[in-house]
């Protein structure tokens, strides 16, 4: 069986500066795969390239059998690749409900959209309570919930989450991670970028460690969690 997402020798540059220097990895349907690493390792650049916001320098990206380099960002969403961006980027002046509706922008099945909005409220009850409120008034953690719920609204084959725990309180971070476990148990395929390596690795099937544009180490989540060098570099142990 071929993988849902296959990235081969991907290079991405901002002008002359190469941010991603030839990485390869794959995501199988049903898996949670995580990219961990410090700031500037190229994780966000990788996700933005996969979703079509950045154009790669070279390499190939195959998603669900299709070469993504031939598609625009809005067409890639239509193929079933959803991206919840770093910094959440909810639409602050729209209501929570309108934000969720925008997540279903390309869908025509009105009744099913309503069901999916309800499902998002079931997953995150706080969003349901505030559905008519402007999204900009939500707390950081609630905005993260909204960003995740919104990304799920296109019924993606692959959900990409960029730094979902960034800037959140430990309790809220815990909650977001529990949600990812919940989505995983429902069979959602997830590509997770995180600086919180401990949390990401403990729930991931596969992990890749990125350093200055390269993947330096790969393995199962558990392997990496117990790897000596990973523990030293990313889990803050001596």
């Amino acid at each position, binding site marked *: 069986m071929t993988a849902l997402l296959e990235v081969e020798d991907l290079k991405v540059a901002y002008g002359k500066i190469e941010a991603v220097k030839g990485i390869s990895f794959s995501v199988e349907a049903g898996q949670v795969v995580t990219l961990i690493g410090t700031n500037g390792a190229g994780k966000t650049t990788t996700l933005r390239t996969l979703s079509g916001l950045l154009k790669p320098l070279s390499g190939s990206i195959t998603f669900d059998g299709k070469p993504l380099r031939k598609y625009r960002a809005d067409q890639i*969403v239509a193929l079933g690749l959803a991206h919840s961006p770093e910094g959440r980027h909810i*639409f*602050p002046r*729209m209501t929570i409900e309108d934000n969720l509706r925008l997540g279903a922008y*390309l869908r025509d099945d009105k009744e099913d959209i309503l069901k999916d909005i309800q499902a998002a409220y079931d997953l995150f009850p706080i969003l349901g309570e505030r559905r008519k409120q402007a999204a900009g008034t939500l707390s950081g953690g609630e905005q993260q919930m909204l960003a995740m719920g*919104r990304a799920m609204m296109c019924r993606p084959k692959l959900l990409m989450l960029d730094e979902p725990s960034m800037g959140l309180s430990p309790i809220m971070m815990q909650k977001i991670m529990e949600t990812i476990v919940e989505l995983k148990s429902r069979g959602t395929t997830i590509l997770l970028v995180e600086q919180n390596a401990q949390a990401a690795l403990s729930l991931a099937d596969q992990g890749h460690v990125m350093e200055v544009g390269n993947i330096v180490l790969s393995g199962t989540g558990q392997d990496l969690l117990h790897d000596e060098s990973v523990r030293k570099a990313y889990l803050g142990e001596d």
Partner: protein
Amino acid sequence: MNELPQQLANGLILGAMYGLIAVGYTMVYGIVQLINFAHGEIFMIGGFGALTIHLWFPDAPLLALIPLMIVFAVICSVAVGAAAERFAYRPLRGAPRLAPLITAIGLSLVLQQAIWKWYPDATKDQPFPQFEGDPLSFLGADIKVNSLFILIAAPICMIALGYFVNKTRAGRGMQATAQDPDTAKLMGVNTDRIIVMAFAIGAAFAAIAAVGYGLHQGQVGYLMGLIMGLKAFTAAVLGGIGNIYGAMLGGIVLGLAEALATGYMADVPGMDLFGGGAWKDVWAFVLLIVVLLVRPQGLLGERVADRA
């Protein structure tokens, strides 16, 4: 003599025209943060488009011809507006702000001169067809039948735009693009198409305003977009640039202020030198300066800090 109703009516007519043109400035700015200084000329092109239909069918009754004039005016303006976006502004997206701004000013001159050179007799103002009929009296004001067009068209256009922006999928995509273009793409919005759409809607409104202008003024000319464009831009800033209702409100406030200043400034003690039509443009810009001092974001504008 009580001339207040008449001044208010004049102000409203002028303001409706400013407001319709201002929508084009504000929509384009809201989505690509570009001041399309060629928009006044897109308005002017609409005027000549409408005139062309009259010249083709000089004997047709005006009432029957008006729909065709509107359609052709809109086609001409939209074609020029969309072409400007595609070939002049899109290649400069991501360039420093100054580059598209200067392009817009250049484009504005090109369009003026093109009409001046190639449209028959356009070196002089051209008479615009007029309806026959006595002015209507309404609450003490006399309104020319030719001025009714803009008073009817402006509210219809604004209601249609409000519906489009809030109730249709493309309208929601437009709001999303205005708030956060990259994230809009991640929702599946084809932002390039939304941007062309914003230019096209703005151009269509300008064309309708141009038909109203031709009827109201009785003539069109290749320079008509210059001062009308500048005033409409002022109206857009006054109302809060980026806000479509603000554009119409700004237009009406500006129109009323001009009319009232023209009519009454001379009666204000010590200001007798500054009344009359010659000073109306000055008072329009004084109003702009005052509003921007007190409320920099404009009447209905939101603070920039709200942009995430």
